[in-house]
């Protein structure tokens, strides 16, 4: 089966052990090459949905199919191979701050290596070149030997993108990728994502807080509210007024 980067979420619910409902019967079909932005208030379940897509969170019921393969049922080697096709970047960048940029980027490739080879750091010549190319794509090749902690937030996030690219993913998940960044850096990071989406045909699913950003970059906007899918429209049909409902809090009129 060809890997295209389609995601099919079927009746997914997530109830946390303390009884809080994170996701409530979500159905969502994402086509290859879409740039989907998920909007909603904090706690609406955006992160939970994204983290369910690569199984960093288990779901309580329902299925999530990545190119037809159910990640909610996969385990062991099968799960790791599925995850390899789904890259993710995070709100807190999640780099190893003490390690160099190069090592952080190379670590994105571990899914392709045996345990002992990767543990000893025996990355092939091709992959070292791949790491350099990934960094070049986010314009950070000059930081190759710099320690991650010495980079600014925006630079760290772009190293995160370079690391994610090492997986040669079909799907790119971005969990609040720009929430800590200033407007200018935000644009750089979002432009990087957009370029991957357009040039490589990656399916991108991103959680964003800002409606303006969602309007600028998305091809489709999905709204979550209290764990329910309340909104789902292609960008051409989106009206800014629609957001009022998604962002309405209890007690608002």
């Amino acid at each position, binding site marked *: 089966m060809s890997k295209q980067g389609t995601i099919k979420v079927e009746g997914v619910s997530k109830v946390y052990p303390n009884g809080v409902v994170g996701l409530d019967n979500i159905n969502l079909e994402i086509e290859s090459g879409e740039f989907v932005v998920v909007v909603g208030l904090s706690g609406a379940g955006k992160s939970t949905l994204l983290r369910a897509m690569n199984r960093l969170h288990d779901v309580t019921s329902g299925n999530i199919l990545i190119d037809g393969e159910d990640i909610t049922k996969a385990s062991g080697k099968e799960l790791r191979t599925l995850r390899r096709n789904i890259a993710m970047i995070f709100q807190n960048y999640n780099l190893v701050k003490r390690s160099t940029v190069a090592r952080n980027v190379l670590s994105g490739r571990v899914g392709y290596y045996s345990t002992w080879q990767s*543990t000893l750091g025996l990355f092939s010549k091709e992959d070292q070149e791949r790491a350099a190319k990934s960094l070049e794509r986010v314009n950070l090749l000059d930081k190759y030997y710099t320690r991650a902690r010495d980079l600014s937030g925006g630079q760290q996030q772009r190293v995160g993108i370079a690391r994610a690219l090492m997986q040669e993913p079909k799907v790119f998940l971005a969990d609040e990728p720009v929430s800590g960044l200033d407007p200018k850096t935000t644009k750089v990071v979002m432009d990087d994502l957009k370029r991957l989406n357009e040039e490589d045909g990656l399916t991108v699913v991103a959680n964003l807080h800002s409606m303006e950003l969602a309007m600028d970059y998305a091809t489709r906007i999905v709204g979550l509210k209290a764990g329910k899918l309340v909104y789902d429209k292609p960008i051409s049909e989106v009206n800014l007024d629609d957001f009022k409902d998604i962002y309405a809090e209890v007690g608002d009129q």
Partner: protein
Amino acid sequence: MPNLPKRSALKEWHVIGFALFLLFIILMMLSGQKTGVGQNFSWDQFFDLWIKMSNPDWSYLPAILNPIAQTIQMALVGTLIGGVAAIPVALLAASNIVKSKIVRGLVRFVMNLTRSLPEMLLAALFVAVVGIGAFSGVCALAVFSFGMVFKLLYEAIETIDEGPIDAMRAAGANSIQVIAFAVFPQVFNQFLSFFLYTLEINVRASTVLGYLGAGGIGLYLNTTLELFRYDRTAVVILSILVVVVIVDTISNQLREALA
């Protein structure tokens, strides 16, 4: 001056504080009498020891250089064996690595048992098991370092930034790869620091292990004391002091560089 609010006389003169202080002194004197502290104390002997020790017999120094070197070697080897062995066990005890409470609890319980034995007791045990000599000292120090590095390391592992763990899992890494790429780089410097700290303690401890027949300089401490050669005891103590100060200084410098 503005009028301060009045306090009762009791509080004004800190009566309760003074009463407690007096009570404490009386209790101390009573318990001293009860346990017989200082009854056999002789000032003459005390000064005699000091006078003899203040004239060190420096000709004794060459004889103790070898045992001193052996002491340091014992500390190094013991710390190395114990410290390295502690790494996998510390991973098993860290709550962010091993999710099973039963496994973690079991590992910690066994390790707590190990740590409850002081070095001297361990040395006595090993002398009984493997015989007199440096090997039993190394064994004792290795077990002690094992427990010490284990405890420090698993607590350090539990405080790491867990973001990189998520990132590695998302990239399709298996658990050993997660440890190698997300956990190990975050705690490696701390591990070296714990290792050096344990080495400092072990150098100090290994100087007295010889007392129990577990090798090193301690044997000479014992012999000179028993022969009442306090002038030689002084040389032994001074040389131990020099070694401990040197090791502590180097270790502190290195640990600062690692921080």
